[in-house]
Structures are given as C-alpha cells and as structure tokens.
C-alpha cells in the first residue's frame, strides 16, 4: 500500500548537528512554483553531501544526468529498510520497516519485477488513451457542477480532486461513493506532519476497506482492474495492498498537478494565452507543467555497493536522495529552467522518475491532464484567482506538493 516509511519520521532535529546540511524544504514566500530555497545547486555540482533526518550522512542529487544515472542503476536499492529518511517527521523509528505487502515502490528486482509485470499491461499508452472519453465525461460533469454553483469555487474540491478520483475509481472498480472511507486516509499517508500513529490508523482503515473490496470482487467480479487481477496468482493481501497503492497514487498525484498547474498557468498569463490560442499545445503544456512543478519529490535510494556517479564515490549503505524537481531545473538540460515555457519541449523531464520504478500510471496522468486543462480554460475564459496569490495555501509538508485549495472566480455569461 502507499504507506511510505521513508516519510515516517521523528522530531529528531538533525539540523542542530555538525556536518553537511539537511534537505532544503522551505520555499521562498511568493515563489510557490520554485523548488525550496537552496535545493538547486550550482550546475557544476550535480551531487553533494546531505544529512538525513536521522543524522546519516548521505548524498543529495540535483543534476539531471546524475539523477537519471542513479534512478536507472540497480545498484541503488528502493527497499525502505535500507534507507535513511531524507525528511524529518514525527515518530521516526530507529530503522525504517520494510515495505508492507503490495507496496511495490519499496521493492527491488526480482520481487518488484514480478508485481510490476502484472500491472504494466493494464496501464499501456493504448489502454489509457481509450479512457479519453471517460475523462472527458468526468471533466464535463465537474465543470457543469462548478459552473452552476459559481461564479466562485475552490478549484481543488470542484475539479482537481474529483476528475482523477472519479477516473481511478472507475478504472480500479472502487465505488466513488465510498470516498469518505479512503480519501482522507490517503491524504494522511502522504502528510509529513502526521504522527506515525495517525498514519498507522489511516493505513489500517485503508487496508480494511480494500480487503473488503477484494473479497467482494472475488465473489462477484465486475468489469474493472481489481476484478481482472483476481484471476492472477496474487493473494488477497497482495491484491488489497496493490489496490491501495494504485488508489492512493491515482487520487493524490494528478489532483495536485491539476490544482498547482492551474495556479501556475493563471500566474503566467502569456503562457495561458498560448494554450488558449492553440489547444493542440495541450500535450506540451502537460510535459512542461510536469517538469516545472515536479510535485512528487524527492526519491530516495540506498547504495548496495560502492558506485561512482559523476566522479563522486558513493559508498555501500549510503542513502542517495534524488530530487527530481531540482534535476528538472538543471540548466544544462533545460535552458532558462525557472521559466514556464510551453514551447520548450520538456520531454525528458524526470517528474515521473526514471528506471524500473518509473511511474506506472503516467500515461493515465497524461490523458487526464491533456483533457482537463484545456476543458477548464475553454469553459471559463475569464477564470482567475479569487484571492491574492500569496494567500493560496500550499501543501508544503506533504510527499506530494500542491495547493490545499485554490479559490477562483469568473465572469458569469
């Protein structure tokens, strides 16, 4: 499931100890789209020493080429129990527990490969494109409701959350009507300020829910992904765990890209005008917003042996924290990286990660965003923030960055 022990932390304040700095996490006021201050390094320093939340001295990777190298190298492990947590959080255990059953993010080959191969066929480019009409349907439904209730709305609650939630629920076969049984639980799992106990409760509640659902699918299969998977050799426990992971990933990632992405486009009117003038720019818009915002960050790995990366020797056992948001602002890969430029050709960004763990649902996310952004701006040509930009509340203590809410308004026809 999506319980991410790398995110389970303690108040242990490593910042008071001597040595290299901890992971920068604070954004400059008024710069909600830029990486935390001090995260991006001079371009001649693609990796540097970093202190983890437990005091371990590891590495921070901020260069694009170095990030690709680490994420695609099987000598760097994803197993949680080998990692030192990059981010301090309440209740950090001495050693991180291994991945719970079904959380394939915390596994290496060959276990990871076995699970992933059961899933990749369900998320192919072709299959996800076939969902375009469903995404259009859900998008229109949300926009209708938003328009009727307007001319003001919280874009997160009215649009950014429900569109991907409706889609992932239908795809998996999770009743959207049950969302009070999983939505806040998923949010708690990603919340870096939540106590370990609260995370545990959320995880247990989500597991119970998915176990019930899996048993129901086995008894009476329906036309959906979870039912499909009941014909595989997965146990109930594995299936519930994987279901939870897919649900959490589907609920909380695209939603944050839609909310924060809308905020970014409204804050860059010349770019928004370009998209409005040419809806065919939607695909490039999505790639550039992924690069520019990189909401799922950082990605930790543990060296299984000594590995040299760009001339620096990473020792066995050291944790390497890869910041994809920093890598996606590497000027050697993306000139003038702090500028949102829909025409730049942002392909090659690392917002979905890289290597064997690269985001399984990325083609779904692309379809959702490629449909949703143009539909939103076509429906509300006068869409604008209803509050000053500095008053938009940010999710800056979550594993997935975004806006908590986005108050918007528009002129009624």
């Amino acid at each position, binding site marked *: 499931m999506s319980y991410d022990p790398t995110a389970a932390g303690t108040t242990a304040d490593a910042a008071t100890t001597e040595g290299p700095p901890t992971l920068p996490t604070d954004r400059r006021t008024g710069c909600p789209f830029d990486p935390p201050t001090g995260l991006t390094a001079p371009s001649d320093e693609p990796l540097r020493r970093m202190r983890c939340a437990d005091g371990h001295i590891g590495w921070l990777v901020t260069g694009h080429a170095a990030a690709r190298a680490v994420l695609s190298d099987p000598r760097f492990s994803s197993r949680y129990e080998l990692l030192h947590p990059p981010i301090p959080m309440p209740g950090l255990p001495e050693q991180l527990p291994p991945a719970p059953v079904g959380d394939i993010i915390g596994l290496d080959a060959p276990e990871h490969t076995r699970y992933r*191969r059961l899933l990749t*066929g369900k998320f192919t480019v072709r299959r996800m494109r076939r969902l375009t009409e469903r995404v259009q349907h859900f998008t229109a439904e949300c926009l209708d409701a938003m328009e009727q209730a307007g001319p003001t709305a919280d874009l997160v609650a009215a649009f950014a959350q429900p569109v991907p939630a409706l889609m992932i629920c239908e795809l998996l076969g999770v009743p959207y009507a049950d969302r009070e049984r999983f939505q806040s639980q998923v949010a708690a799992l990603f919340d870096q300020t939540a106590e370990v106990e609260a995370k545990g409760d959320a995880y247990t509640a989500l597991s119970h829910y998915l176990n019930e659902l899996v048993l129901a699918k086995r008894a009476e299969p329906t036309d959906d992904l979870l039912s499909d998977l009941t014909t595989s050799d997965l146990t109930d426990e594995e299936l519930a765990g994987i279901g939870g992971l897919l649900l959490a990933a589907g609920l909380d990632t695209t939603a944050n890209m839609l909310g924060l992405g809308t905020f970014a486009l409204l804050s860059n009117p010349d770019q928004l005008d370009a998209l409005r003038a040419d809806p065919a720019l939607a695909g490039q818009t999505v790639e550039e917003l992924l690069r520019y915002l990189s909401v799922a960050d950082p990605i930790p790995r543990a060296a299984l042996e000594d590995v040299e990366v760009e001339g620096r020797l990473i020792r066995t056992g050291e944790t390497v924290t890869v910041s994809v948001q920093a890598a996606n602002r590497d000027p050697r890969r993306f000139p003038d990286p702090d500028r949102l430029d829909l025409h730049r050709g942002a392909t090659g960004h690392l917002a979905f990660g890289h290597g*064997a763990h690269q985001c399984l649902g990325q083609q779904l996310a692309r379809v959702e965003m490629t449909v949703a952004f143009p539909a939103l701006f076509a429906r509300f040509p006068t869409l604008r923030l209803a509050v000053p930009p500095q008053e938009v509340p940010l999710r800056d203590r979550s594993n997935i960055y975004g806006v908590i809410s986005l108050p918007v308004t528009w002129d009624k026809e």
Partner: protein
Amino acid sequence: MSDTPQPLLLSVDRGRCAGAGMCALTAPEVFDQDDEEGLVVLLRPAPAPEHRAAARTAVGLCPAGAITLDPGEASGRLRTES
C-alpha cells in the same frame, strides 16, 4: 535528434523493459506495447527516415535502457532482432 536522420537499426530487450510506455508514446510508428504485460514490441527495427528522429528520442527516454540502436548501414553492422 538530427535534421538528416541517418539510417538506424533498433533492437529491444523485453527482459529489461519496465513497461512505462515512453517508446509507444514517443514513436508509435516504431514501438508498441503488448496488451498482456505492456512490454515493448518493436514494430519497425529499421524505421523509415520520417520516423527516425522520434525513434532516437524514444531510445533516450526509455527508463530501463531496453532499446539499443546501431547506426545500421552507416557502420555496416547488422544485429539480430531479439
């Protein structure tokens, strides 16, 4: 990518493939994914000139390093398709 794409010969390693779909997304004339495991299917090992730039991009984007390219005729080497 180059303005005058040279001939190229591609091969894929389905054992390494992560099924992320970057190749099928980037160069759909050249790569596909099977419906069962979502792993790479090489449609055109020697892509036509108009598809070569996209194919080269796909090689670079592959998260698993599962696609390799040989500068086919240019080097005179040939490689068996896997």
